[in-house]
């Protein structure tokens, strides 16, 4: 029925398609673990996309482009950090404002960069490994960022679970008053987490403009940031599930285009809505198992902290 689809290529391209949302989701996961709800992921991603693009075009180096993207995302998130951690502004409103601001600012910065091609990055040379049938195509044919995105999941998981740093971060997110009483600098830790989240979202955006599309156009992220936010909830704030969620989402969106190209007799509308439908379905199933999902949200998520209170 789906004769034309090669599962090997499908898996390989779903890994690529999910990189931007995975990077952004992992960043946001850390931010939310620290008790901060930053809804500005979309804005930080697109700032990363344009800053990375500009850096890569000006320097001619894709690697520096990614650094530029991370810096761009982090700088924008710094604005959010100042608003919510220093000025104690509402996090939801600030996050939404950050998205709107990022979209506009990126469009302004990108004025002179429309229609330019960025320097291309090459797949990591694995030599003979890439020639292994099936596995070689799936695992050893990508650019460095596909591996980095998976490594970032491993890294964040290990840090949160096994290190003192992860414990402090979680303490700040679960109960900021207690963490403060123990002498931890709640707001400083949160600012650092926000910067990390901004840098990761920036990387995700830079991946879009430098590798996946690769060019700069206004509104290039097209809602990827919101999907990343949904994945964090979907993952119940656990890194491995974020990986699963990103691959599921990336996988379905790639699969639906493949099914169409293979002329499978399924109406396009169902295929187009399937990623969103499945995301909703999974969220419903997860939240119906009350205990565990409810427990896993950081208790202080979205609450501002002030030592004088």
């Amino acid at each position: 029925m789906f004769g034309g689809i090669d599962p090997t290529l499908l898996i390989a391209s779903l890994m690529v398609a999910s990189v931007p949302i995975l990077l952004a989701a992992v960043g946001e996961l850390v931010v939310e673990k620290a008790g901060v709800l930053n809804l500005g992921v979309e804005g930080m991603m697109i700032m990363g996309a344009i800053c990375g693009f500009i850096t890569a075009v000006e320097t001619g180096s894709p690697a520096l482009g990614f650094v530029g993207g991370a810096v761009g995302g982090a700088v924008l998130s710094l604005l959010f950090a100042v608003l919510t951690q220093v000025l104690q502004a509402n996090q939801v409103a600030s996050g939404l404002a950050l998205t709107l601001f990022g979209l506009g600012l990126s469009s302004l910065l990108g004025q002179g960069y429309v229609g330019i091609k960025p320097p291309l990055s090459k797949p990591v040379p694995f030599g003979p490994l890439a020639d292994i049938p099936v596995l070689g195509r799936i695992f050893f044919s990508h650019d460095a960022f596909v591996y980095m995105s998976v490594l970032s999941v491993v890294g964040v998981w290990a840090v949160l679970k096994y290190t003192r740093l992860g414990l402090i971060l979680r303490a700040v997110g679960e109960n900021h008053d207690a963490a403060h009483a123990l002498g931890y600098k709640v707001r400083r830790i949160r600012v650092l987490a926000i910067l990390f989240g901004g840098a990761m979202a920036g990387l995700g955006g830079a991946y879009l403009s430098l590798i996946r599309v690769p060019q700069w156009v206004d509104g290039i992220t097209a809602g990827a940031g919101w999907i990343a936010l949904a994945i964090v909830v979907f993952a119940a704030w656990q890194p491995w599930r974020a990986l699963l969620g990103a691959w599921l989402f990336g996988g379905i969106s790639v699969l639906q285009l493949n099914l169409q190209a293979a002329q499978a007799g399924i109406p396009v509308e169902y295929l187009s809505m399937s990623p969103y439908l499945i995301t909703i379905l999974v969220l419903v199933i997860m939240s119906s198992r009350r205990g565990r999902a409810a427990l896993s949200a950081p208790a202080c998520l979205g609450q501002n902290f002030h030592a004088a209170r």
Partner: protein
Amino acid sequence: MKRRHLLATAALGLSLAFGGAALAQDKTKACFVYVGPIGDLGWSYQHHQGALAVQKEYGDKVEVTWQESVPEGADAERVLTQMALGGCDIIFTTSFGYMDATNAVAKKFPNVKFEHATGFKRESPNVATYNARFYEGRAVQGTIAGLMTKSNKIGYIGSFPIPEVIMGINSYYLHAKKVNPNVELSVVWAMTWFDPAKEADAAKAMIEQGVDVIASHTDSTAPLAEAEKSGGKVIGFGQASDMAEYKPSPRVTSIIDNWAPYYVKRVGQVLDGTWDQTDTWAGIKEGEVEIGEITDAVPAEVKAAAEKVRDDIAAGTYHPFTGPINKQDGSPWLAEGQTAPDGDLLGMNFYVEGIKGDIPK
């Protein structure tokens, strides 16, 4: 306090209303609504080039304003109302999806002229429609696709299932089939005009399934960027704009929408008061559809064949939809030698015989 506030508001409202009217008398204001960003380098970009041509032609006599990335639907109606209130004399709505909004707002502002691109509804005398015969350009692309494909699989990224796009798919397929009877077409509906990541993914999905010539009906250059990654194995076409930065390959030629002559003419008619309701549908002959340079990435004989199609259409000796043509279900549409009437094309909701798959409803 309250009364003073009320008076102040009224005064402000009056001054705005009169101020707007006074401004409108000084200068003719031409307004443009775009569905995507000007920076899409495709559809909206070309309309904006037309708007700039209007400004250049009439200089101080005309004020040109525009709004980009206006969603089709309720937002469009709000934007149009705002523009009409803001003193626009003529408003160009440049996407099919603005059709109902344009007609609804036009009823409320009989003194403002509305020009709707690619639509067919003219419910009040101040609404005109205009379109370009893009399917003529698709005939040229189809000819190249049929001759250039090695896998005999060609692809088309559709945006929305509207007559405009279906016409393009049919024309593309018919002309590929004409020069290469073994050709197979796969159509992917992106269900968006502009989403670079999705367009790239759609191109990628087709390439993975062996498609080696991709035409797109979406607005960005992303499918070309994806084709470029294949290292010359996959070719594509510039859509709406020349997309010259992907020359000589993967972009082997392009359809360029040249709206400037039409916009200049229509705004000129507003200036001298001769504007009236029209339904314009111009093509290669009138210069509204231009075929971008055919690059050396295609062999000379392919280039010659494509140019012959182009020139025959321009000369009026050939119509891309000339019978015999059957519909997808095998029922006859055009008899031998018969050409498609415009009415059939503008309401086209069927594939021609040989295309697989269904049109989404």
